[in-house]
């Protein structure tokens, strides 16, 4: 491939690519992001290719292995162009029908369509599915349209036009002003205005400047950065290059965690392709601007996502945070000015350049502009990646996009911002998704994790879970973080075991305050958020655990017991047979009784008891009723046989 030497040559190249593509030629796009791959998307692709070959359609149908469109709950996702027919939960066995029916006979396969659980209506196109319909997919929407390993696909969608625009028509200062005007805030956690960070980095003294992509995504349940880097790596590279131009940097890094092999593969390929075309390297598009990018693989520490720790790790040392009284934008990698932004932040940049800061700033709220991608997970019907405009209410995200809570359960809280974030209860669900509003509510935007919890979640147990995560993932350097988390975790564990003492809540609050005030980095400063927010909104649950030794959500094992209601037990033997410890006594026509000494509270009996009987009960905070006397256990049955 000859190098592209000017914006005009780029447009010619683009025209060439587009002219060779027939928009009416059928194309089957199969999501081969990590989620769908785990569900067997590669086998679906193989089966489709086999069928295409069988029908001799190799020249008439394209197959595209794309990135993640977000509807992970219903993978493997397949979209057929030009009609944009969206098939969900596609299996390799469906390939035959997809080719013979949809491709050849132009018929829609009804059983593969999305069915609305409430109205039973089917949706043919992606855009008709409520999950997608209520989103605003400016960043992630391209994923299903392109093969991340093909730079031509990215170019066909207008790729690198923003880079060409800044290099040929804008000064670095103008780019900076545009990004500042857009009010783009960092998508990685803190929400620091990107333009201000760029400016600080640009104006900092130093010969060398670095720009870095933070792809060390590590919040439990969060995977939006993975999907972007895997699914549309060129958009991140383009954003990074634009940033480098504005800041005056000639070296960039992509710090990506080792556990994201596909993202590493795709971005490495993308860098190579961009170098070949001349979008990276020397004299980019004939502008005189030089810029190279290297991939750096993280070694698996959560704390390395913190900016100073990430930069220390980039230097080849243990990824421990450094004090940030001087910003890393001024003194970062090897003490040079270093501008670190998250994957999603960089991916927003080409959009802002192409469509303008004014356009971008019209989306969202006063303080938070544009869209945000969330990993919507937990007790919600449509788990997956959702991109919504800032300012949408949490209720709309969970109910309109997420389809509500499964199994008719009641919503309890949503955890935003991962381990550094907090819980938001039902009464705050109408809060707009906005950096400042979420912080006010005691949580944070974070990188965009959104874990939905229903009534079966214990908030003490939840706080304990996150603190346990942080006890492992803190670097362990400073006392307030390491020891504060250690002691908070101990107290929470005791409470969940029924060993809570009067004053524990106050002890937790005091430790939280010190951890927040005195810790060295943001991990420690925010570590107490899960504790503080659960105390703030669910103090009564803490009190129930401590004072009544009762777990209102029936989660904390030490505080619950299983009990078979003798009036409801039909002596069906189901629970008795399934009990792994043989703790259930009884027999045919003998009311079953749980031996509390032997019971490990695994809940198998509770799950096994047929709902029409509902004889197994969870109890908490009250003594287990004494077992029914043996002589009273016989059930007189009406004989069904004659």
């Amino acid at each position, binding site marked *: 491939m000859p190098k592209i030497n000017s914006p005009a040559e780029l447009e010619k190249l683009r025209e060439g690519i587009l002219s060779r593509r027939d928009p009416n030629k059928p194309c089957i796009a199969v999501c081969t992001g990590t989620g769908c791959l785990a569900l067997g998307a590669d086998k679906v692709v193989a089966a489709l290719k086999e069928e295409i070959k069988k029908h001799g359609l190799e020249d008439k149908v394209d197959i595209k292995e794309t990135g993640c469109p977000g509807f992970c709950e219903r993978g493997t996702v397949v979209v057929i162009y030009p009609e944009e027919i969206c098939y969900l939960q596609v299996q390799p066995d469906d390939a035959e029908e997809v080719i013979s029916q949809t491709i050849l006979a132009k018929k829609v396969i009804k059983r593969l369509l999305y069915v609305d659980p409430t109205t039973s209506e089917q949706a043919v196109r992606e855009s008709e599915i409520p999950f997608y319909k209520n989103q605003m997919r400016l960043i992630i929407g391209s994923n299903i349209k392109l093969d991340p390993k093909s730079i031509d696909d990215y170019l066909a969608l207008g790729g690198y036009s923003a880079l060409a625009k800044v290099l040929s028509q804008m000064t670095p200062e103008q780019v900076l002003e545009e990004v500042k005007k857009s009010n783009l805030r960092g998508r990685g956690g803190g929400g620091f205005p990107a333009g201000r960070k760029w400016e600080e980095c640009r104006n900092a003294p130093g010969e060398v400047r670095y720009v870095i992509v933070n792809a060390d995504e590590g919040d439990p349940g969060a995977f939006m950065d993975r999907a972007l880097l895997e699914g549309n790596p060129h958009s991140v590279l383009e954003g990074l290059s634009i940033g480098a131009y504005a800041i005056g940097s000639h070296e960039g890094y992509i710090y990506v965690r080792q556990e994201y092999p596909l993202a590493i593969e795709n971005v490495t390929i993308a860098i190579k392709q961009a170098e070949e075309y001349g979008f990276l390297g020397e004299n980019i598009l004939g502008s005189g601007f030089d810029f190279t990018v290297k991939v750096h693989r993280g070694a698996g520490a959560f704390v390395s996502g913190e900016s100073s720790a990430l930069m220390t790790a980039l230097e080849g040392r243990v990824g421990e945070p450094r004090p940030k009284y001087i910003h890393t934008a001024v003194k970062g990698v090897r003490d040079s000015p270093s501008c670190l932004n998250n994957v999603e932040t960089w991916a927003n940049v080409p959009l802002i350049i192409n469509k303008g800061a004014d356009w971008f700033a019209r989306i969202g709220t006063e303080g938070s502009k544009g869209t945000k991608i969330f990993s919507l997970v937990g007790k919600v019907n449509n788990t997956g990646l959702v991109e919504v405009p800032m300012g949408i209410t949490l209720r709309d995200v969970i109910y309109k996009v997420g389809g509500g809570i499964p199994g008719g359960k009641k919503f309890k809280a949503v955890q935003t911002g991962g381990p550094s974030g907090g819980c938001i209860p039902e009464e705050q669900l109408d809060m707009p998704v906005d950096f400042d509003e979420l912080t006010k509510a005691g949580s944070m935007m974070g990188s965009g994790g959104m874990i939905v919890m229903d009534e079966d979640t214990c908030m003490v147990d939840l706080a304990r879970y996150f603190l346990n995560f942080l006890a492992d993932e803190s670097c362990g350097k400073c006392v307030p973080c390491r020891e504060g988390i250690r002691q908070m975790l*101990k107290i929470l564990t005791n409470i969940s075991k029924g060993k809570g003492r009067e004053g524990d809540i106050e002890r937790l609050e005091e430790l939280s305050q010190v951890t927040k005030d*005195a810790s060295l980095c943001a991990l420690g400063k925010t570590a107490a958020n899960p504790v503080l927010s659960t105390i703030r909104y669910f103090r009564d649950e803490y009190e129930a655990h401590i004072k009544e030794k009762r777990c209102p959500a029936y989660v904390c094992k030490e505080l619950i017991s299983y009990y078979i209601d003798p009036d409801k037990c039909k002596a069906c033997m189901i629970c008795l047979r399934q009990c792994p410890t043989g703790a259930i006594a009884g027999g045919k026509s003998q009311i079953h009784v749980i031996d509390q000494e032997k019971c490990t509270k695994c809940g198998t009996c509770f799950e096994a008891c047929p709902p029409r009987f509902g004889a197994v009960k969870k109890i908490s905070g009250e003594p287990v009723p004494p077992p029914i006397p043996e002589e009273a256990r016989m059930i007189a049955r009406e004989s069904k046989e004659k």
Partner: protein
Amino acid sequence: MSEITLQIDGREVKAEEGMTILEAAQSAGIYIPTLCHHEKLEPYGACRICTVEIEARGRTNLVAACLYPVEQNLVVRTRSERVDKTRKVLLELMLAHAPDAAELQDLAQEYGADKGRFEKESSFCILCGLCVRYCAEVKKKNAIGFVDRGTRREIIFIPEIASKECWDCKECFPLCPTEALQATFLLTKALMSPPPPSAPESEE
């Protein structure tokens, strides 16, 4: 180097650009407690006992004095209700490891810290890192290091290096504010002697 004027505990203090609050305070004879600080070593900021309250750009904040660079017109308070409370809890957290360490006890008295507030931990070490950093920065031997992270972090002598370097040095011992270092060394010593047959010393 330009001169900077700041205010510490109501006193006007002159300092040079690039100095930390701790250095500025020390040069003016104002005491700020430290545990992980050592003049021969790079500031580390781990124990946080030097936490002070600052007022800058209209905001009040807690910062580590050993790391925070002085600024013109910065207002520093080395004692305040918030500072004292923070130091008290930090001491209580460290006392859970080393309840009888003299340095911690002296400070505990000053700040009213209760050494029994938190359950006793199994290690004496408060991970101030003086030994690790002294060995690395001053002696340049790296015979002792940190392993693991989070609440599992600990100090460990690297037997291969320690068996060569430590016998005649032991300069880190007097730096240790608790008994942990000697204990760790004794453990390593026990592990090292008799040296394993494959050790290079046995080659002769």
